């Protein structure tokens, strides 16, 4: 692992809801350009961790740093502007808008003036051309005018990634990008993810149940269990760790 300053760091994050401890003193950091896979059994707190990092929910205690800056108290949109992008476990799109309009909205934010009432989105503007480029990048250019709601599962995931790219994030959180995707579509999606990481040197965190996908893609793997990080190491080291094996597969007396 590299020794430069982590671009994203979670320090001693805990979340308690009612009496239940959902996350328990989680510390995890990612260096610039690194791809980190987060795995663990259902209910281990992976999505919760992503929700805390992106600001959807606030932690009970602990700090989140982006580029060394404390963003724990910043709102979702402020973190997004600071370069933190994410996707959701279930596709989260504007279903009534076309694929192009979805991406264009995201591109507008990056280009500025997204709330202007004096400017109309049109075929020739910057945001549109950026949006078309991003659609092309994920292989959806032919679906530019299709309503997001009627795209296939796999294409919806790709569209989400295109929206993400349009905001030009430094750090990307992918929450189960393969969930619900037909197996035939998996390799294509893997290539898209590889491209946004390797191609652009972005930092990526991803939760995924497809272990072979994770192992083939990431630099390091973090294993979560019962709201804690059990191990964080290279894929080989993690998979050889007996504690991980027990946690992941469950042990029944």
């Amino acid at each position, binding site marked *: 692992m590299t020794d430069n300053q982590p671009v994203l760091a979670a320090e001693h994050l805990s979340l308690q809801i009612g009496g239940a401890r959902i996350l328990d003193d989680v510390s995890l950091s990612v260096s610039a350009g690194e791809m980190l896979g987060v795995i663990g059994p259902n209910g281990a707190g992976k999505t919760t961790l992503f929700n805390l990092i992106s600001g959807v929910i606030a932690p009970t205690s602990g700090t989140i740093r982006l580029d060394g800056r404390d963003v724990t108290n910043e709102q979702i949109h402020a973190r997004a502007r600071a370069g933190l992008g994410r996707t959701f476990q279930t596709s989260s799109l504007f279903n009534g808008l076309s694929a192009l309009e979805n991406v264009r909205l995201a591109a507008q934010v990056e280009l500025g003036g997204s709330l202007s009432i004096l400017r109309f989105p049109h075929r020739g503007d910057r945001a549109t051309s950026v949006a078309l480029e991003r659609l092309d990048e994920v292989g959806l250019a032919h679906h530019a005018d299709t309503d997001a709601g009627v795209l296939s599962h796999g294409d919806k995931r790709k569209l989400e990634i295109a929206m993400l790219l349009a905001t030009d994030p430094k750090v990307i959180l992918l929450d189960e990008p393969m969930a*619900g995707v037909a197996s035939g579509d998996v390799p294509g999606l893997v290539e898209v993810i590889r491209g946004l990481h390797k191609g652009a040197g972005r930092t990526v965190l991803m939760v995924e149940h497809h272990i072979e996908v994770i192992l083939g893609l990431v630099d390091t793997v973090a294993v979560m269990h019962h709201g804690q990080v059990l191990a964080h190491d290279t894929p080989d080291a993690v998979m050889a760790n007996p504690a991980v094996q027990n946690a992941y*597969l469950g042990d029944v007396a």
Partner: protein
Amino acid sequence: MSDPILSVRGLSARIAGQQVVEDVTFDVPATGVTALLGRNGVGKTSTIKGVLGLIERRGEVTFRAGGSAVRLDRLRTHRIVQLGIGYVPEDREVFSKLTVAENLRLAERSSDPRREFVAELFPDLVARSNQLAGTLSGGQQQMLSLGRALINTNTLLLVDEPTKGLAPIIVSEVAAALAEAAKTVPVLLVEQNLQVVRQLATDSIVIEGGRVVHTGPAAQLLDDEDMIRRFLGVHGETTGAGATA
């Protein structure tokens, strides 16, 4: 082989307008525990909810009990449950502002509830019967959720990830209770923990991309590392190591 207790034909289900299950077809045998498996997000929970009518669904779902066949897809949830189908939801879903006793009382469908059976199975619940369910630990809530289903005499049990997020010691307790219940009633079980599946399941159904990709005896599936890796995304080696642990 006798008729299956539940036949699902071309089931599709939607949540908030989004397709989550597409054209799923399978049978649940009238005896034993059938494990419904697949990676996260393939729609196992939605399949169960679709069978119960908890979400918008299409397709044929036929329930065979006592020699007659009933089309569940034409019934509303409470009618389906009244046919003798017990349900243990994912994430337990106990009523947190009701006491343990009230949770159980609410679930009683007949004039002859099996209170002793549940009390024997989960002595902890008896001791806490006046406690609000919301103050129970995760494991205790799971037992309450199971207790709610087992307090009635059912012809079929639908159990959704009963060990999710539970500590190992509790997992074995829950598994033991399920094993006890399964002696008298067929079970359709969604479960991520392959050890629990190995311990309980007789048959298996694997869903992938919203469709069934494999059916067969559970033992056969669990011993095939290649299938496990392909269908469940679990690393083969680890399965072997875990299985012998």
